């Protein structure tokens, strides 16, 4: 698959991620494994790893946000969400969801952001 391809072709016609909780600031990194890829039997029928899936796995050997993945690969955000969702379903990547989801009180979180910014100023 060389050259430009319309986004819906890359995602197999899907425009929604299989996991709805992927945000643009969710952090992604490939999980170790054979070539960072799952064994073929783990692949659901409708999902075949395409070139863009492999590019994501190649890029994400360390932590990057979904937005950074999209920017570095030159793909629309929506497409990257679908593809990262596939890789997540397959257990090929770990995804760290955005922070302010119940695990920390906003006040504590805001204080942590504030302290961090003041130190960097």
């Amino acid at each position: 698959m060389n050259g430009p391809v319309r986004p819906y072709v890359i995602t197999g016609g899907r425009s929604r991620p299989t996991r709805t909780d992927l945000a643009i600031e969710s952090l992604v990194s490939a999980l170790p494994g054979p070539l960072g890829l799952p064994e073929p039997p783990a692949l659901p029928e409708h999902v075949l790893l395409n070139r863009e899936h492999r590019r994501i796995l190649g890029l994400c050997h360390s932590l990057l946000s979904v937005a950074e993945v999209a920017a570095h690969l030159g793909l629309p955000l929506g497409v990257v969400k679908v593809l990262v969702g596939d890789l997540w379903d397959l257990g090929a990547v770990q995804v760290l969801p955005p922070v302010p989801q119940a695990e920390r009180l906003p006040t504590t979180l805001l204080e942590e952001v504030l302290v961090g910014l003041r130190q960097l100023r």
Partner: protein
Amino acid sequence: MASANSAEAPASRPSGPQYLPSSVQGAVKILVTGPFGVGKTTLVGSLSEITPLRTEETMTAASSGVDDLTGRGDKTTTTVALDFGRITLNSRLALYLFGTPGQQRFWPLWDDLSRGALGAIAMVDLRRPDESFDVLGRLEEQRIPFAVAVNTFPDTPSYPEEELRSALDVLPEVPILYCDARDRRQSYDLLIDFVDHLHRSSLLELQP
């Protein structure tokens, strides 16, 4: 980033990914919004530890209502560019700053972009404040905590705060802050003042 005209210049092509430390456990985000040319990308660039990146989101909307002059109910697709930057706050936490267009036609994207955001910085150019009315109204409707950030271009007129507050029609609890978005120090002070405001508001909410 020397002139106001570069405010919305395309972010540089990525030179290569700058990865987060593996100790980072999650990220938070703040939106930087406002009309075209107000200096969103400049502010993001002054604050970001990485060269600001650009990504695109495709927005598909059924062209119903006022825009549908054909009567065929076709879908329209618009591409929206988002410039963004990053600050690693400590070994565990990263902050992303997303430059988000404020014009009404981009609102279908807002639900997704604003979900989970700590808040939004609404930039205003006082030479054309009316261009910010849409976005200020939208932030109020969506109940996103925000501050007004006046980008102080060299020929920005100055007004007493009460006059400005009344002209922009923002509530007393919304801070009005000033900043030359080209200046890193001023941009940091702006961001710190905003997060400080969010923090103090959250403490007030905790009180019985």
